[in-house]
């Protein structure tokens, strides 16, 4: 009887050990938030074309995040160890972000590289000298620090853009949102997006079809003024309008 009890006890211990081996602890809210933030950082870098310049770093960052997620859901590690895995993933994502700027310099997005000429109806060519139509450009509009609302001084420019778009129904517009260098890259990327969207919304309210407008955020990556002072920052907090 005693031997039998010992046997049953041993079986129970083994069963518990197996169950523990397969246990999933589930991700905590903080793990999930952290994973989402890292994933967002990687996705933004990817959206900005990092795969062309640094495919190896992109692959490594994604794998690190996957690894951290895996370890966070398995029951093998304590919270400090899981944190260390997320820190490694975050570092890989930061390294990736640091490469976005140089990548954009090497491979500027096509619509930004050269503002296309306006699609104007070809005039009859009486003159022997061919005249290229002057490209239409618009002034940039600027924003207050950490804000994305349209200031009063931006409204005349936006009105001019809207008038042009209405007179040229084939024209398409890209709005680039930019920020100054203060704040994290990911925060500034989101802020740039809000700025571009604010201008787009304003133009739509002025009667321009939203389908003719696209937006893109460059965050702090393409400053108009590379200096590190308030005057430069004020110039860099802007929306740029590019006709496509």
């Amino acid at each position, binding site marked *: 009887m005693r031997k039998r009890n010992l*046997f049953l006890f041993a079986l129970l211990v*083994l069963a518990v050990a197996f169950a523990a081996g*397969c246990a999933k602890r589930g991700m905590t809210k903080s793990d999930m938030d952290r994973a989402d933030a890292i994933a967002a950082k990687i996705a933004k870098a990817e959206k900005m074309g990092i795969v062309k310049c640094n495919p190896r770093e992109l692959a490594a960052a994604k794998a690190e995040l996957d690894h951290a997620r895996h370890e966070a859901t398995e029951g*093998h590690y304590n919270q400090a160890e899981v944190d260390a895995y997320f820190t490694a993933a975050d570092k890989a994502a930061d390294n990736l972000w640091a490469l976005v700027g140089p990548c954009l310099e090497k491979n500027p997005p096509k619509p930004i590289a050269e503002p296309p000429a306006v699609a104007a109806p070809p005039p009859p060519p009486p003159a022997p000298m061919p005249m290229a139509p002057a490209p239409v450009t618009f002034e940039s509009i600027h924003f207050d620090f950490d804000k994305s609302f349209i200031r009063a001084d931006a409204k005349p420019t936006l009105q001019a853009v809207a008038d042009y778009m209405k007179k040229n129904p084939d024209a398409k517009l890209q709005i680039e949102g930019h920020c100054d260098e203060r704040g994290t890259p990911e925060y500034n990327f989101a802020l740039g997006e809000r700025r571009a969207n604010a201008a787009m919304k304003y133009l739509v309210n002025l009667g321009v079809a939203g389908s003719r407008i696209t937006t893109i955020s460059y965050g702090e990556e393409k400053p108009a003024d590379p200096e590190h002072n308030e005057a430069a920052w004020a110039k860099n907090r802007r929306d740029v309008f590019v006709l496509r």
Partner: protein
Amino acid sequence: MTMGRLWALTLAVILSAAMAAGCSSATAMKNARAALDNAKAAGAEEKAPYEYYSAESYFGLAEHEVQEGDRKGAILFAEKSEKFSAEAVQKAGGGAK
């Protein structure tokens, strides 16, 4: 059945299960390694770098899990690595012929 026999039977079952689990992760690793070598031979490092380096990264993670004794993790990452290797080969134009 005597107690001794019961013990022996239980041990045999446990050992078989452990060996089977060990074998499946070893097989997954072997397949992933072969797929990665195949991708490299196909020139995927140049022609499909993202897929190739993903395969390489996941293979590294699988090896790490093997060292940590996490068979399930090893299989998971080895299979991911194999999948990326296959994509890399496909993108690189079908691999070595």
